[in-house]
């Protein structure tokens, strides 16, 4: 298989396994789960094999047409593929235990098909192939959210489909413009400079990539999906996969398709986008009272960090951004899985009714706490490392404001996770939830593995970092040993100050609000102007999707009354009614009296006479 057709396996294996799983009835559920797990594991092994065999390329003609279908795997895509397979395996494991009564057949199918398509997108060597797989992910996104089974699931599914679809549409436009510049759809050997039409193409493609990853302003479907979609989906797509492939595409755009120069306008644009995403999303996350919504807003916020890091353009920032992507996938999916376990046992995700579950669900609680600390950037976990690198990268560009926004994000992140941890696992046992047991091993195992990864990547961060810096331009120039475990410089000092500030904020809010941990963020919520903004945001005032739908409805109504009803009146009422009236009057003239008819003859003759004599 040296001609590279082995590259088809990561695409075909999950898809075929997914189709097979679809056909297995619910009675053979265990068999189905085993097949899914085996395919996930097999995928992992195959991708691990790629590390040995070096760069492979596969070229063929697509379905006997002249369009070239080419796949390539290089170091970066190998890396991403590996983690795609890891996450799909872990989540399949979790789901196989959890969704015992629900529609797990469709879930597993969609999961496997999404995995196959994501592998295809990562392996693509040409923009057309990438587009094909990229768009295919939209369908499974819609189907996934519909599986949630709640009343508003379909609406949210449509919202997600339209928002992500719009991003994909921008991406297609960007690809077309790119084709105008370079003349081909293949990935070029050397990147194109960013000027002229290139800037428009770059912006559109970035919009597409970041929108898929879940950055502002196309993020509004994720919190809704947190409620309406199954939690396995949340761990899978917005938690892990979307970040992996979204940031993969962003890196490819910035460094393979175009050359992003640090300090240029494009770089500034990316950083601004990242900074805004961080701050706005984390502020929204702070006031959430439902753990799943809280986690989803944090997912959006962390994407901001990744974009900020990559947007700096300096090696430290880029490596930090990619590492952050990996870290986020690890701890976010673990957090979602933990929330899913809590939901399954207690039946609720509302912070108000949860509390003190540590005694009953110790392992879940421990994993949750570890991952919460990781996302907040506490030393020595992996989140700390990646955040430090990103902030270092920001400072290297010379604009301190971005670092300030990253620190601000760190404060609120830690504050909201303190709230989450305190409300669910620590604190007093809330009597409104019945006594629960710990969840079963299949559900625990993924969380434990992911939490362990958090710790390992934090302590021994040089392992992943050295892998990552290989495929970042000028990454080999990084002094990796200087960063981890180095607490004694200004940057880390300010970070630790931020964490302490967050702790104080949480404690203040907790004490002020009757020692109820879930109200700890109300101090921020109730600040004078902020309060109004929060209310508007919760009422979806700033949601562009909702506003756009309102506008479309008004426009459609105007068209309906303006054109459709009026032309309908013209045909149905005016013509028909007047015709009927004319016919009735004509018919009433024919009364049947022969004398009248004789009169008609003479009248006719006189008319002809008049006519002829005048003429």
């Amino acid at each position, binding site marked *: 298989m040296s001609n590279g057709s082995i590259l088809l396996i990561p695409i075909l294996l999950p898809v075929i396994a997914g189709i097979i799983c679809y056909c297995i009835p619910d009675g053979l559920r265990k068999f189905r789960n085993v097949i899914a797990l085996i395919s996930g594991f097999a995928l992992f092994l195959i991708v691990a094999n790629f590390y040995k065999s070096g760069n492979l390329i596969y070229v063929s003609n697509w379905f006997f047409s002249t369009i070239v279908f080419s796949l390539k795997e290089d170091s970066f895509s190998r890396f991403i593929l590996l983690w795609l397979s890891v996450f799909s395996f872990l989540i399949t494991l979790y789901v196989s235990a959890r969704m015992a009564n629900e529609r797990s057949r469709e879930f597993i199918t969609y999961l496997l098909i999404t995995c196959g398509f994501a592998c295809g997108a990562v392996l693509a060597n040409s923009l057309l192939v990438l587009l094909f797989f990229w768009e295919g992910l939209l369908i499974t996104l819609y189907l996934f959210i519909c599986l949630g089974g709640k009343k508003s699931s379909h609406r949210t599914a449509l919202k997600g489909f339209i928002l992500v679809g719009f991003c994909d549409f921008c991406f297609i436009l960007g690809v077309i413009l790119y084709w105008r510049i370079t003349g081909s759809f293949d990935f070029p050997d050397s990147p194109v400079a960013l000027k002229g039409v290139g800037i428009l193409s770059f912006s559109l493609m970035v919009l597409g990539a970041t929108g898929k990853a879940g950055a502002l302003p196309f993020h509004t479907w994720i919190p809704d999906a947190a409620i309406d979609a199954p939690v396995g989906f949340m761990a899978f797509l917005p938690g892990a996969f979307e970040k992996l492939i979204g940031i993969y595409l962003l890196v490819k755009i910035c460094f393979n398709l175009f050359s992003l120069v640090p300090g240029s306008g494009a770089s500034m644009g990316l950083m601004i986008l990242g900074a805004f995403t961080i701050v706005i999303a984390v502020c929204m996350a702070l006031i959430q009272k439902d753990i799943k919504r809280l986690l989803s807003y944090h997912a959006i916020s962390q994407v901001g960090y990744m974009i900020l890091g990559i947007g700096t353009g300096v090696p430290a920032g880029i490596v930090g951004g990619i590492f952050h992507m990996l870290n986020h996938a690890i701890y976010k999916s673990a957090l979602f899985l933990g929330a899913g376990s809590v939901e399954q046992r207690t039946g609720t995700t509302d912070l108000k009714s949860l509390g003190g579950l540590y005694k009953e669900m110790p392992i879940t609680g421990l994993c949750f706490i570890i991952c919460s600390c990781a996302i907040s950037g506490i030393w020595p976990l992996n989140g700390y490392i990646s955040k430090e690198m990103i902030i270092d990268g920001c400072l290297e560009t010379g604009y301190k404001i971005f670092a300030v926004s990253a620190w601000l994000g760190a404060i609120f992140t830690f504050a909201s996770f303190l709230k989450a941890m305190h409300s669910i696992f620590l604190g007093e046992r809330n009597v409104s939830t019945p006594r629960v047991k710990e969840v079963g091993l299949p559900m625990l195992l993924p969380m434990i593995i992911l939490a362990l990864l958090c710790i390992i990547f934090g302590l021994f961060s040089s392992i992943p970092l050295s892998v990552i810096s290989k495929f970042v331009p000028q990454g080999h120039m990084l002094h990796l040993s200087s960063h981890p475990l180095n607490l004694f410089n200004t940057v880390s000092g300010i970070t630790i100050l931020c964490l302490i500030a967050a702790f104080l904020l949480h404690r203040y809010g907790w004490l002020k609000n009757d020692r109820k941990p879930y109200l700890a963020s109300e101090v921020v919520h109730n600040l004078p102007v902020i309060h109004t903004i929060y209310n508007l945001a919760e009422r979806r005032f700033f949601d562009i999707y909702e506003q756009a739908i309102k506008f479309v409805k008004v426009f459609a109504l105007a068209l309906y009354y303006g054109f459709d009803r009026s032309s309908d009146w013209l045909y149905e009422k005016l013509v028909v009614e007047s*015709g009927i009236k*004319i*016919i*009735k009057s*004509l*018919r009433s003239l*024919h009364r*049947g009296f*022969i004398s009248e*008819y*004789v009169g*008609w*003859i003479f*009248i*006719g*003759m006189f008319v*002809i*006479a008049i*006519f*002829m*004599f005048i*003429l």
Partner: protein
Amino acid sequence: MFLFIFVAIPLIVASVMLIIGRFSRDVLPDFLANLCFFLLLCASIMISCSWPGTGQYMHILKWFSTNLNIKVVLDGLSLLMIFTISIVSLSVGLFSINYMGKYGSKSLYYAILLVLVASMNGIVLTADLFTMYIFIEAAGIASYGLVSLGRTRYSTEGAFKYLVLSAIASSFILLGIAGVFVNTGTTDIRSISASGFSSKFFIILFLTGFSFKCGLVPFHTWMPDAYTAAPAVLPAISSGIFVKVAGVYTVARIFFNALPFSAGVSSVMVYLGIISIVVGALLALGQSGLKRLLAYSSISQVGYIILGIGIGTPLGIIGGLLHMFNHAIFKSLLFLNAGAVEYTCGTDDSLKLGGLGKNMPFTSTTNVIGLLSAAGVPPLNGFWSKLIIVVALFKANMFLYGFIAILASVLTLGYLLLIQRRVFFGKIKECFENIVDVPFWMNLSMVGLGLVCVWVGVSFAPILIKWVLPAANVLMQGIRTSFCALGGIL
């Protein structure tokens, strides 16, 4: 001598028919009458085949070598009419083998029908105005009789109205002929045109009288009443050919060949035509009775014919004459279908009928063919004639009339489709569930006419070349003569 058989043989058979009727009620009258029609059809085809394309045949009657001075003339226009008359009369004859069984004495019916056919042949074969008038009257009397054969009070009322109104129109015609005779000293058509006589007063009289015979608005009022209550064979033959012969042919003869064709006559014909088209179509839309609707439809279609001829350009005349032929075929077909429906169901009110298509497939299919033909849908025959008329209108810069003609075509399609849907498609009513199809001869005549529709539609060039063009030439010659006679003013 040969041409004389067109008039003589039907008359002879008619006179014999009444005697035969005493011995044989059905078979012999049927056989004789249809044999006669068949012979006439063969004769007309034979003459057409040997027709040189221009000129005319003239036979002068002799009675044992005494010159009777009765001329029988056949030119291109007469040939077209003879051909049309023979086709339609044969179909009607075949149809009435079964149909007229319900209406009483068949021999009486055949006698009157044969007189009608003989008179119509006489109208087209004569070159003399007064002879034409005699035959018109004879044919008219036969028509009144046929109308009243319906034997209901409505048919008697219709016949009476037809009689009285027709008498008024005929008196106008007679006045006109008398006036022409006084002013030119002759009633021979050729001599009249040679003398170049023209008078608006007599033109008005002729127009009034013959428009009545055509059924143009506002002289159309006899048509619906006469056609509704009569047995369906009467409208078939009357609207099919008699209206054309006594109305259109005579108008063409007199205004193209006898009197000069002036611009005034042209405009009057065009206006009468367009008004008839629109009013006829509108009135038809409001009807539910099959025969009444088809009567109004006839008014509309005759409007097309007069419009086409009235334009005066070669294209218009060709269109008008072709439409005359086509209308004879499809309108007879539609009326015979109405008769078939009446034969099986006893009523022709479309609101009471429904879903007959399943049990009467031949009738339904031929009705569809006739309907599409009448609406001008390719590739049937009506399409070609309407197309030529509309093109002629556009070429003569009468754009508004062209659009009106096209719109009226849509209206035609509308009301005919409505009838088709109401009567033949849809759900069948319980009282009609057990009806059977019509007998063989009725089917044969309807299918025959349908096949002629299709054939003429698909390959209309032979008809055009062999019959219509010579006819048009005759009329065009008349225009040219009048052009010269009027000193170049048209």
